[in-house]
């Protein structure tokens, strides 16, 4: 298994490189000129040039790519200057910026013709100048406060209902539930949010309309329930349909017939034999959904003023705050890959047929 995990980690490198390449191509070639985002409402050419230089977007693209790789690897960004210019004095080193002095001394001795980093610091949002890693870590909490309960509730209810529906498969109840699911799935999430916030939150006052506090419990008990309920409600219909199909797939298997031939009651067959096997595709499905919980539901987060990652990314998109989007994408891709690996390793616990080769 060690070898398997090692190999999988090794295989992640090209994928991660690919993700970085994709992001780079997207943002540096296709995307607009970031300098204009940063320039104010009255700007002149010189200022824009100055910003371009600070961002390094005036460099050739291969250097920018290397630079991006450096950013991802270290989480630090550096000011780039061409060799003819000498780096400025770094600000007095403080506990916050130890990295500065180190790279600066290096810069003095850099080979001519090479661009040299100076004044390294954590990658920052263009809009708020907040350190991007800090943005990601501080926004993840609220997102998970919503999404983990959503995932748990959705899975639990989904599985329970799916077993029930699969048990009465083909009956009128089954058909009705499936019909309701299809219809429920057809209504846009947006409509649900708008209507639910208006009626549940405002008109009937069952939940606060929006908000977030510093207390985890208060969030979970006061602010999170409505968003969670909405997300569960919306997610339940597709989950139910999917899980039902998993159960039906399993029910048609030979081992179910064997179990019946043993004299097991239908309930035991479903809850023991079928459920255990259906958990395998269900786990796969959760594995696929799991990385998504880190992004959260940006719609919920913006409507309910939850300071989560999804809302942050949305704001970044609206403001063309590229460092935030880029970092979020790359780091979430890493998390996704690690989660996938973890899920694959976990498989072993559910499916004894899995072997790590």
């Amino acid at each position: 298994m060690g070898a398997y995990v090692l190999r999988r980690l090794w295989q992640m490198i090209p994928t991660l490189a690919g993700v970085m390449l994709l992001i780079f191509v997207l943002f540096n070639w296709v995307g607009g000129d970031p300098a204009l985002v940063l320039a104010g409402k009255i700007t002149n050419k010189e200022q824009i040039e100055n910003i371009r230089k600070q961002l390094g977007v005036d460099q050739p693209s291969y250097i920018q790519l290397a630079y991006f790789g450096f950013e991802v690897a270290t989480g630090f960004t550096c000011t780039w200057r061409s060799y003819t210019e000498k780096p400025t004095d770094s600000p007095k080193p403080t506990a916050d910026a130890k990295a500065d002095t180190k790279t600066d001394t290096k810069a003095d001795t850099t080979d001519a013709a090479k661009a040299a980093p100076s004044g390294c610091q954590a990658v920052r949002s263009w809009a708020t100048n907040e350190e991007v890693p800090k943005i990601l870590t501080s926004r993840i909490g609220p997102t998970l406060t919503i999404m983990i309960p959503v995932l748990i509730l959705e899975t639990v209810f989904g599985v329970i209902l799916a077993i029930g529906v699969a048990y009465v498969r083909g009956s009128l109840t089954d058909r009705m539930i499936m019909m309701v699911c299809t219809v429920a799935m057809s209504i846009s999430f947006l409509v649900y949010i708008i209507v639910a916030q208006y009626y549940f939150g405002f008109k009937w006052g069952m939940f606060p309309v929006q908000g977030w506090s510093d207390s985890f419990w208060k969030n979970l008990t006061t602010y999170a329930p409505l968003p969670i309920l909405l997300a569960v409600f919306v997610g339940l219909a597709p989950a139910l349909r999917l899980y039902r199909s998993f159960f039906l797939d399993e029910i048609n298997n030979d081992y179910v017939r064997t179990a019946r031939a043993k004299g097991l009651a239908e309930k035991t067959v479903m809850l023991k034999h079928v459920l255990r096997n259906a958990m395998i595709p269900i786990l796969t499905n959760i594995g696929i959904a799991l990385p998504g919980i880190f992004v959260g539901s940006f719609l919920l987060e913006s409507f309910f003023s939850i300071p989560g990652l999804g809302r942050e990314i949305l704001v970044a998109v609206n403001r063309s705050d590229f460092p935030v989007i880029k970092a979020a994408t790359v780091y979430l891709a890493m998390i996704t890959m690690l989660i996938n690996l973890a899920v694959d390793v976990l498989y072993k616990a559910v499916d004894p047929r899995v072997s790590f080769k």
Partner: protein
Amino acid sequence: MSAVLTNTPTAAPLHQASPGLWTLAWRRLKRDKIGMVSLIVVVFFLLLMLGSYAGIVAGNWSKEVGVSYANPSFMAGAENLDAVKAKVDANAEKIPYVDLSDIDPLAPRYKEWEERTAKIKITETPRSDTLIFGGDKWGRDVLQKAIKGAQTSILVGLVAALFATVIGTTLGAISGYMGGKIGDFLEWFYNIFTSIPYILLILAFAAVFSSSPSLAPYRGVPMVVAILAFTGWTGIYRLIRSEYIKHASREYVKAAQAIGATHSRRMFVHILPNVSHVCLVQLSQHVVQFIKAEVILSFLGLGVPVDSVSWGTMLAEAQSELVIGKWWQLAAAGISMAILVTAFSMLTDSLRDALDPKIK
């Protein structure tokens, strides 16, 4: 092969065109009541879309036929909310107009202008207090607007799904059939896309595409289509790839290889028709998915521009109307979308049942 059939020898015994698998699938579908009803609904929407495209239906959607937020006819009694008239300071009316004639380059022709103006009379059509399903803020008929919105949304959904299917199928076919280095490369490519959470991928594409100056001419529908297609092909790729892997080892493909059929012949003449039902099901599934995505993108301002109305822009507009009690635009867009999407999803299910050789 149709040439063969037209050239059939006269000596050949009497025959009737034998039902192919598509024909059989169609027969199965015809027996599926829910499937047929869904099909009719979908076709109805498609016709509506074509009709509105051709201007036969909802051609006058942009005409302001009612007062602002005209009530639906079935609520004719309800109080109409008159658009607040601009309050003009009574004193302002008394202030004389500033004379520009000493500096105005147009001054020499003032008189001519005035004479011409007097001749022109623009009459305004009276506005109705109620509309069938209510009016929007400009007093446009919400029902017509929903139809026009359907045109954009369905178009985006269909075209994006078509592109995604083409991309996914082509790459999946190559990867699944060829395998080896090419397969590895495409797998790598696929992994890149799937290791980024889908929502984030869409947002990243949207952020970049919509801020790219070089893509500026394609803003609006083409860009939404591109965003959805470029991010949405992965599922199709995965499926088609596994289908191709499965089929490539099937005996009929081996047999084709044995008789000397080329790679491209095997890939496209032999295997493709056998996985085409998967493509079709995927296509219709993605139409649904993309219609829903379009709504959200448009709501976020990353989708179609507001002058080409879509269900998404309608919902974005309707969001604030709910609070002031003008629920009909939300309902019109929400319900028409729900009907189409429900029908499409059910059709997809029926198609899957009808086309899947296993379930037969």
